[in-house]
């Protein structure tokens, strides 16, 4: 804010006296902003961007960015996220326009700093959206976050963040698959779990969480089928269900083996491998991993 006031004063002084005398909408917007009258500042800056005399000037968009950024900050704690998100988007567009008008200008660094702040709020809001299972909004916010980072910090490797976001997304899908809720189709949730973990593994095939959780997802599906089996089932149904369950355990195995290869001393993975092999009726191998687990426990 302090930096903005200094820049604003300098820019204000640069405006020709005659023009200043006419109290142009940008200057008036700035004055309203300094007086903390954000609604008035917004009204005036919108007049400016609608006026061909001002909408090609960098500072018009720069000030607009600040006004909307503050409107966003003021409104982000209220429940009406749509309004808050709209202010943020207006701020982002304004800063981007300011940079586009003068890519080498003195305001670029300040615009980028504001954009970085706004991008961090996008990332946090993407996480909040996932908290409430709002997957579409979460993805939109995360994609926007990535767009801004690509502009402000083009050298940054986005892979770790993308993996983190998708692991969280997959865990939310997984929760809805395990504990179905109204409005969410269980089958679709299950497909999404697999699709999102595959996305992570395409980015990093050595990601231990994705490998482990993918394995558990398949394994638990098999176990859930067994748990829900009626004891009255005849042989034909029993054979059919058993084949289906073995397919799921078989699908879990390569992911759990990969997780083991990545870290052979992880207890959960040893328990997982032992359980999968047991489910696949390979008792000898299951017991071998149990022994490894016991050895690990005794060494700790």
């Amino acid at each position, binding site marked *: 804010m302090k930096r903005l006031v200094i820049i604003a004063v300098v820019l204000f002084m640069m405006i020709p006296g005659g023009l200043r005398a006419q109290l142009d909408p940008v200057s008036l917007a700035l004055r309203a902003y300094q007086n903390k009258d954000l609604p008035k500042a917004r009204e005036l800056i919108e007049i400016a961007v609608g006026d061909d005399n001002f909408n090609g000037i960098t500072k018009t968009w720069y000030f607009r960015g600040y006004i909307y950024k503050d409107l966003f900050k003021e409104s982000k704690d209220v429940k009406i996220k749509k309004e808050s998100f709209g202010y943020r988007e207006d701020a982002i567009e304004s800063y981007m326009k300011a940079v586009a008008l003068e890519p080498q200008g003195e305001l670029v660094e300040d615009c980028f700093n504001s954009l970085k702040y706004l991008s961090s709020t996008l990332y946090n809001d993407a*996480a909040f959206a*996932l908290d409430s299972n709002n997957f579409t909004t979460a993805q939109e916010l995360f994609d926007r976050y990535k767009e801004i980072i690509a502009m402000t910090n083009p050298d940054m490797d986005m892979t770790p963040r993308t993996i*983190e*976001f998708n*692991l*969280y997304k*997959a*865990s939310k899908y*997984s929760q809805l698959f*395990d504990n179905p809720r109204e409005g969410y189709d269980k089958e679709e949730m299950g497909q999404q779990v697999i699709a999102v973990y595959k996305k992570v593994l395409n980015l990093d095939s050595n990601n231990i*969480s994705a490998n*482990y*959780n993918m394995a*558990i*997802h398949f*394994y*638990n599906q*098999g*176990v*859930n089928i*067994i*748990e829900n*089996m009626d*004891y*009255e*089932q*005849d*042989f034909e149904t*029993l*054979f059919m269900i*058993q*084949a289906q*369950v*073995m397919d799921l*355990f*078989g699908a879990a195995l390569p992911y759990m083996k990969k997780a083991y290869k990545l870290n052979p001393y992880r207890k*959960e993975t040893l*328990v*997982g491998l032992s*359980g999968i092999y*047991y*489910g*696949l*009726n*390979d008792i000898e191998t299951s017991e071998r991993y149990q022994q490894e687990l016991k050895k690990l426990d005794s060494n700790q």
Partner: protein
Amino acid sequence: MSYGQTSMNTMNTRAKFKSMYILNFTKYTEWPAAYKQGDFVIGVVNDDDLAKNLEAISKTKKINSQNLIVKRFASADQVTKCHLIYIAGKSAGEVEPYAEKSRQFNCLIVTEGNGMINGIAAINFVVVGAQLKYEMNKALFKSQDLIVSNTLENLATKVIN
């Protein structure tokens, strides 16, 4: 963002399948008239998870209109009259004492292990292509005065006459 880890379901998957097989074995086996009254007793040796499954079933299901009772035997001496006994054990030496005692009754002996079908058990669980299946010894059904249906025979992976 905290994404945590999916919890693994720790259910004993084999015990559930085995208990379902065992219930199906009882559907396709006929016991002598004296065994068609009173409780239907299933004995379990060395497999707590299977016993728990069967005990859960016994609360709601009947077998051939008889109440299901599950008995766990910790030694061969404890073995009493059963309709069916499942004996878990890695070797014939471990299983045989229980089987021998069970033969005093018209008891269907079920096991899981290599070679058990040759003279010890009438039904033996085997693994075929990762699936739990069973093989049977018809002579041992006959020696216990048990009548086995063709369905059970047809679905067995191996039948010893």
